[in-house]
């Protein structure tokens, strides 16, 4: 956020140079990592806006106004999961009606997409296996992704109960919940995913090349 307020003359000079985007180039004061340790790269902050007053053109709304858009789930603990519930058996029915055409019988892959079953332990071989058992450290990722993006020809049309049921069914096909499991805002985040601890923070740069000019290698 703009912090210092330069004089009006300085601000005008900054404006004149703006088009070149040559200002604030890497030696800025931004920390190299975020508070959570994410590498941020170098800073290229914007010149301070040379206005006496902020425009304040936004229109105040309430969280209730945003409810239909507010579909994100914090998948590590399930914050944002809605009311509702769904069983493995119900999920099997929803799957047969709305998913099987692309993903195939028993979610083993179909005409368009590969399998959503198996892959547990695949981390040790490093090849990316796009299954919940391999690449989803948290079970609510299933809920968030299905609700926002599936089915591909009609996304954001499934009910919360249908999405919980599909989550239960896919987890059961992967052997991660029993056949009588029921998923809701309380039970889904508690499902232990195989690769919960399989991810590490970005630790680049991870190469230290030297600028050899002759007789290299």
């Amino acid at each position: 956020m703009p912090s210092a307020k330069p004089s009006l003359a300085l601000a005008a000079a900054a404006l004149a140079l703006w088009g070149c985007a040559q200002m604030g180039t890497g030696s800025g004061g931004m920390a190299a990592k975020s508070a959570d340790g994410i590498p941020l790269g170098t800073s290229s902050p914007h010149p301070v806006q040379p206005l006496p007053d902020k425009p304040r053109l936004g229109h105040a709304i309430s969280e209730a106004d945003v409810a239909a858009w507010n579909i994100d789930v914090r998948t590590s603990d399930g914050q944002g999961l809605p009311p509702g519930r769904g069983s493995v058996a119900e999920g099997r029915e929803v799957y047969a009606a709305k998913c099987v055409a692309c993903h195939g019988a028993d979610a083993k892959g179909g005409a368009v997409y590969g399998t959503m079953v198996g892959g547990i332990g695949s981390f040790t071989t490093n090849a990316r296996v796009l299954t919940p058992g391999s690449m989803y450290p948290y079970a609510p990722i299933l809920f968030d992704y299905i609700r926002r993006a599936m089915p591909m020809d009609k996304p954001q049309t499934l009910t919360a109960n249908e999405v919980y049921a599909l989550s239960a069914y896919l987890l059961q096909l992967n052997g991660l919940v029993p056949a009588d499991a029921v998923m809701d805002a309380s039970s889904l985040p508690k499902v232990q995913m195989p690769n919960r601890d399989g991810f590490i923070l970005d630790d680049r740069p991870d190469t230290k090349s030297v600028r050899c000019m002759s007789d290299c290698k």
Partner: protein
Amino acid sequence: MAKNDRRDFFRRSAALTGGAIAGAAAATSAARAAPLAVPPTNQEPGRIIEESAYGVPSKYEAHVKRRRTDVLKNRQNLSDWSMTPLQYQPGIITPNGLIFERHHAGTPDIDPRTHRLVIHGMVKQPLEFTMDDLVRYPSVSRFHFHECSGNGLTDWVKPASTTVQQTHGLLSGVLWTGVPAATLLDEAGIDPKGKWVLFEGADASAHTRSVPLEKVLDDTLIVYAMNGEALRPENGYPVRVVIPGWEGNVSVKWLRRVKVSDQPWYFRSETARYTDPMPNGKWRKFSMVMECKSVITSPSGGQQLKNPGFHEIRGLAWSGSGKIRAVDVSTDGGKTWREATLEEPIMDKCLTRFKAPWDWKGGPAVLMSRAVDSTGYVQPTVAEIQKARAIAGFVQHHNGIQPWAVNEKGEVRNAIGQA
């Protein structure tokens, strides 16, 4: 600067070729078969200006097009990508019709009159903005490269792609215009506990990513224009995020929602997709900076050198960690290197053009470029990256050195993993 540039060029070229260029010039001075005729375009009027029209390139440039990958067979084209023809791009700016595309459920056509942008979550006052509101804010224009994290993922250890469009074309150079994200977030009032920001699209994938607040406040833009006109639909019309120097996927297009929280969300794209395999069986997450990289765009894969003699090696270099400090080129597969000339302007997190004269003797050669950025980071070879990461399957964040092999016929081929 141009003067120094030229002097530098001649000095290097003389040192390099040792007079071979002068010899070649003498050899081409023979008389042509027939004297030059007056062209018909001199002898009849051209087309008149239409009353109103959007200009298009010459019909003789119709081959300069974006294209989808020809390496993979995509069984659906809703989650798909097209690539920029870098071999035809002479400068650092990519024309709007050639900027690469990547989206996860097709391109929506959004009416700017009804589109709304919302900021909410851990803020003092949730806010809604119309497009008319957004364009009234103090605006900023900035040049930046834009690169997909998957650029080059088909070509790590052996050649799969023929042209630089296919190896490196998930890359474009753009002048973005919009509002600093900090301006809008400041108006909503960020909760002191807020640390992460969600960006979400109004497309059929409702594409979304978590971004650390520090980066959002530092240089992130809410953008409505590119290269002097409104965003193109495939690039996020009417409004998108641009997060300079980071993998393109975080620069969410068709932006409808911004939410502040104290933790990341760990969306599917943040665990299953945009992560990197490590040799110890772990996967690296939130690897978002696009590291220093370069590629020779001419001569490049699929091209044909017509004659021995003078050729200018040309290419692009860029870094998500700052400015390009230097680019070296090799014509012998990396045994010896010399510094190329960088062309102004050299801007932060932006494509930078480099050039080096080359006297092709007519024999086999392997061309490479190696960029150094303002942090001192030197672009690695794939072999050096492989010491740190597991390169198995479609791995992202490929910034390895690209070799192009030239044979005695002048044919240029992708030589990744072979040089």
